[in-house]
């Protein structure tokens, strides 16, 4: 029960100033490190979606999520383990054009990692790879062995759950009924 696992916390909030502070405070109190973070407007206008990953035990993550959910400006918060999710990260790699062309096995590399080339100039090539952490990390390792990676950046995780229940829309519908009462 108290095994440490990577949890993905999904938070829907009002689009107000200071929400990130309110959320991160709750992780800070319990000494949980935020591994990745991704924030963007959700499908519903005016509602923002945060996706946070953190290593925790199940007992702690449950309490953290309840305490996040309790905040007035938070609409709904829940957590999942990897098996309940389809998730993705995106990574960008900048390498020198000269070194890249010198690889000699570009087609093989592109097929192996399903790489997209976003830009190519005299100086540099920018590659894009989406996937799980170990996949984007795998490409980084392989590139690093063969040439100098000038810049490497990976996004926070984004995730969609495989559940039959759409918790946010169900909840908003319930709230709407309540409001009209």
């Amino acid at each position, binding site marked *: 029960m108290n095994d440490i696992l990577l949890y993905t916390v999904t938070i829907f909030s009002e689009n107000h*100033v200071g929400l990130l502070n309110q959320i991160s405070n709750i992780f800070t109190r319990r000494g949980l490190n935020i591994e990745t973070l991704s924030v963007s407007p959700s499908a519903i206008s005016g509602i923002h979606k945060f996706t946070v990953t953190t290593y925790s035990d199940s007992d702690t993550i449950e*309490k953290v999520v309840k305490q996040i959910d309790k905040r007035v400006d938070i609409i709904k918060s829940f957590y999942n383990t990897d098996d309940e999710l389809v998730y993705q990260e995106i990574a960008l790699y900048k390498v020198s054009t000269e070194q890249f062309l010198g690889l000699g096995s570009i087609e093989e590399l592109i097929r192996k990692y399903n790489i997209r080339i976003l830009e190519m100039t005299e100086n540099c090539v920018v590659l894009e790879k989406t996937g799980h952490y170990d996949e984007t990390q795998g490409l980084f390792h392989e590139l690093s062995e063969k040439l100098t990676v000038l810049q490497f950046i990976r996004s926070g995780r984004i995730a969609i759950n495989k559940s039959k229940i759409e918790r946010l829309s169900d909840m908003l519908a319930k709230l709407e009924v309540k409001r009209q009462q």
Partner: protein
Amino acid sequence: MKGSYILMESLRAEGVETIFGYPGGSIIPVFDALYDYQDKFNYILMRHEQGVTHAAQGYARTSGKPGICLVTSGPGATNTITGIGDAMMDSTPMIVITGQVGTSFLGTDAFQEIDMVGITQPITKWAHQIRHADEIAEAVSRAFYIATTGRPGPVVLDFTKNAQLESCDFNYTKTTYSRGYIPFPEMELSKIEEASALINKAKAPFALVGQGVILGNAEKELIDFLEKADIPAASTLLGLSAMPTDFRLNKGFIGMHGNIAPNMKTNECDVLIAIGMRFDDRVTGDLATYAKQAKVIHLDIDPSEIDKNVKTTVKVVGNAKETLPALTKMIEKNNHADWIKSFDVYDKKEYDEVIKQELNPTDDKITMGEVVRKVSDATNKDAVLVTDVGQNQMAAARYFQYSKTRSIVTSGGLGTMGFGIPAAIGAKYGAPKRTVCLFAGDGGFQMTIQELGTIMANNVGVKLILLNNNYLGMVRQWQELFFNERYSSTPMNNPDFNMIADAYRIKNKHVTKQSELDSAIQDMLKDDDAYLLVVDVEEYGLIYPMTPAGTTVTNILTPNNNE
């Protein structure tokens, strides 16, 4: 209408009568407006912003209405932090309006600028900055809604100076809804059924009563529930006075310095019913050994409290005002006479080993407990008890008796020394017809001693009882019991408190002998004026019983057993 006047009108629309405050540069326009509202608000100038917050807390606790604080930016704002944290821990509805520099100066380290919203987000229900006049009415409306509904708590409104000075139309609508905020979660009938099934089968049920009962105005519903199934109950520190002291099923006070019987019975009952309480560590001791034999039913309005510290069998989320009657309806009439009688042996042990000596000391040294009980008796168990923090607080909680609800104002969760004097002032404004008695120690008394000025200036009829042992007594107690009597930083070289009271023109008396105590208490209570009664109590007094921190709830030290 000017922003500062919009604030005044918004407060009026929320029915505010009393405001505690302290002016300063960034809030001058609001105080300028207040000048025109002197006949509409009872405004009390405190002597420090910390005092502003504690007075507002005291007011909220006795009146049931939110406490209103009005202070300036920067240091005025940061001085309110302790009170805000205290109100958050103890679920006290409070609205703290802090001045803020003009919007164009934000983020520039302007004079008396502080990031009040950022600082207070972790310790408030809601912290919000008002940047323009047209946001004021809505912000105030939301602030009252959030502070007072559900599990109450403090709200900060950070009010920029330009918003105070700008003008716009005034329209006020009370907030009754905020998306994503569910103040009163819907009661689940299936949980009520599960809980009543457990209670009906229980041979040894035991209820723990927290402040949630008082905040939910569910005192009568509690009594009905306990009576019907004949369930003994005990209170947390903040739950005290929810049940009258002499109520048949009231088995006292739980926790570190609580009564022996209810603490022991926690680990003997078969069903533990926790009502509006949060299993604080000062109540549970070591969680690994706490009530492990019992099925736990937890009733609370805040879902995040359930399973936080103690794992529960049945989780009843909802307002005690609703959940208790629903339970009462479903449970069967019952009789637990033998179980209830089994408390007596521990009550006798506590009386023999602790209470007898505390209330009737055989030497001439005055104990804290006897002072408390004498004052409680002299006020016919009708008074409001206010405490500071430490030994004075535990003696007061143990020996004060109650006939009415909302009769204890104390800093429970945060344990704020210096809470006492300003909280007593606020408590008196919240319950002007009641006698308000503060018990404080010599340490906490001096932390907010400047509020004697507020008492003098406003003729606040509070009865201040200073239990002076010339020590920071609770820390000294721990040093005596657990740190080899190494009294590091606890002896106090104190001033003449009576001379201080004289300087503030507050009636006062100094009692050093037991024989003087009764007449001094009579003198204190003979009229409605403020009074300071300084009582020299035993220097090396100890609060017993005591469950040492982090040990099991049944590991109770008494004078006969303090190894």
